């Protein structure tokens, strides 16, 4: 009974996608739009299968996702300690606070041309751009997460004999876990945008570059297929992040789970 319900539920979630594809096919097949501008669903699906069988496509995907996840990891390694220090020390807050505020509204992709001047075109520029863009969500969410830990938990822990130097590991960071994982989810989204945008601005490899090559050579069905592949991968990465986060947060209240 439950299984049938689950299938029906999934089916009704998937049906809108089928309707969207049908509408797309309807417009593409009606001859209203130039097939170059709007390839049919079949042509895009064909291109997607073709790409799926191409070794170099996986290489390009690996390059792009490697850059975005590498930059994300660096952003976490640098951002989480900064956010932590800001939350526990007034001096650190006074020092980093204005810097965070001043750089918050800077569009991070705009740093790519500057990084190209410094590091040249390639992976280094891309990874550093992603690192700089993901740094702030980690800093801000870690900071607010630790700040939001109820004082009563700290007092209770102290009363139960937790040493001050272990408070961070025992109480503050676990208490901030939900906020930090939210920051991770946001940073993950940023990392894909920045990695792909940086490749579109200047790169030799990666899917961002690949899409423009397809666009310039007129292989539009492959261009659409690459867009679809990126959307799919970004969605899967987001769902994995949510699933892992909720597994880590299974001790926490239900309303603190990610959506």
């Amino acid at each position, binding site marked *: 009974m439950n299984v049938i319900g689950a299938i029906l539920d999934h089916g*009704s*979630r*998937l049906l*809108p*996608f089928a*309707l*969207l594809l049908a509408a797309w096919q309807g417009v593409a097949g009606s001859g209203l739009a130039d097939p170059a*501008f709007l390839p049919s669903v079949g042509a895009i699906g064909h291109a997607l299968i073709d790409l799926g069988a191409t070794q170099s496509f996986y290489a390009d995907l690996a390059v792009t996702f490697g850059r975005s996840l590498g930059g994300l990891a660096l952003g976490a390694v640098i951002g989480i300690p900064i956010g932590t220090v800001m939350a526990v020390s007034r001096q650190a807050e*006074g*020092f*980093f606070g*204005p*810097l965070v505020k*001043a*750089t918050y*509204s*800077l*569009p*991070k*992709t*705009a*740093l*790519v*041309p*500057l990084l*190209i*001047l*410094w590091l040249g075109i390639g992976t280094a520029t891309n990874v550093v751009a992603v690192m700089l863009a993901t740094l702030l969500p980690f800093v801000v969410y870690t900071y607010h997460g630790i700040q939001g830990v109820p004082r009563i938990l700290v007092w209770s822990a102290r009363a139960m004999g937790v040493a001050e130097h272990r408070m961070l590991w025992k109480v503050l960071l676990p208490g901030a876990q939900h906020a930090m994982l939210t920051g991770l989810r946001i940073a*993950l*989204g940023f990392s*894909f*945008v920045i990695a*792909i*945008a940086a490749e*579109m*601005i200047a790169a030799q490899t990666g899917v*961002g570059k690949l*899409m*423009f090559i*397809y*666009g310039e050579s007129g292989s*539009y069905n492959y*261009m*659409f297929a*690459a*867009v679809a592949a*990126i*959307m799919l991968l*970004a*969605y899967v*990465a*987001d769902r994995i992040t949510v699933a892992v986060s909720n597994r880590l947060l299974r001790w926490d209240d239900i309303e603190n789970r990610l959506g």
Partner: protein
Amino acid sequence: MAMRVIWGMAHWLGQAVRAAYPLLLLALLWEVAASMGWVRPVFLPPLTAVIGQLVALMKSGELIGPLAVSLYRTVVGLALAISVGVVVGFLMARIQAVRWLLDPLIAFSLPSPKVAFLPVFILWFGIDHLSKIALVAFTCVFPFIIAAYAGATTVPTHQLWAARAMGTSSRGLLLRVIFPASLPSLMSGVRVGVPYALVSTFTAEMIAGGGGLGGELVLAQRYFETPSVFVYLLVMLAAGYVIDMGVLRLRARVLRWHEE
């Protein structure tokens, strides 16, 4: 009296310096490192040279023009995203079938890097304003749909009943009850959407050219005019900051009646 004013100003100045000292320190370090020749000026020109270039570009009109172009694209894209987003969000909140149709599509599109659609928009709309506006609108429409939906679904049911009982029409219900009740949520959406819109505009300009601050930034980098690169970066930063301040003030005005 005059003493008190001077003291007040000195106090204010002290506060300002204390609040901004890391930035001043950074600026000082930048200036010293560059003018002592620790780094080559092509990589990091002195801050004073950047400020000089800022004044020069301002005088020659190479700053105001591109800024206006970028802001035009941002504002039009945002306006499109708000109007479409609010309508779609309200429809989703009111009509079950619309929610069933769009909810899975939005959930799927939300985490995707929207910039991946830029080649598609260039194909459809060319490399001038329209493809950039399309990217801005497409990037920002999702936060607005969600804000409008969230706002509309938080209207207490008894308020809807009360309005109905007092003879409010469907249209009146939407315009005079649901819309005002959604304003706090919508204003939060604006605050989230504006930086996205600016980033999308600059990014699209950097990728596809066609003028604007992003286009000028990439050109300056290609000709190794590093001071100009920094000028354009600082102007983008300032634009984002000033607009965010404006949104906050607008929010405070629009939501005077709303308790936070």
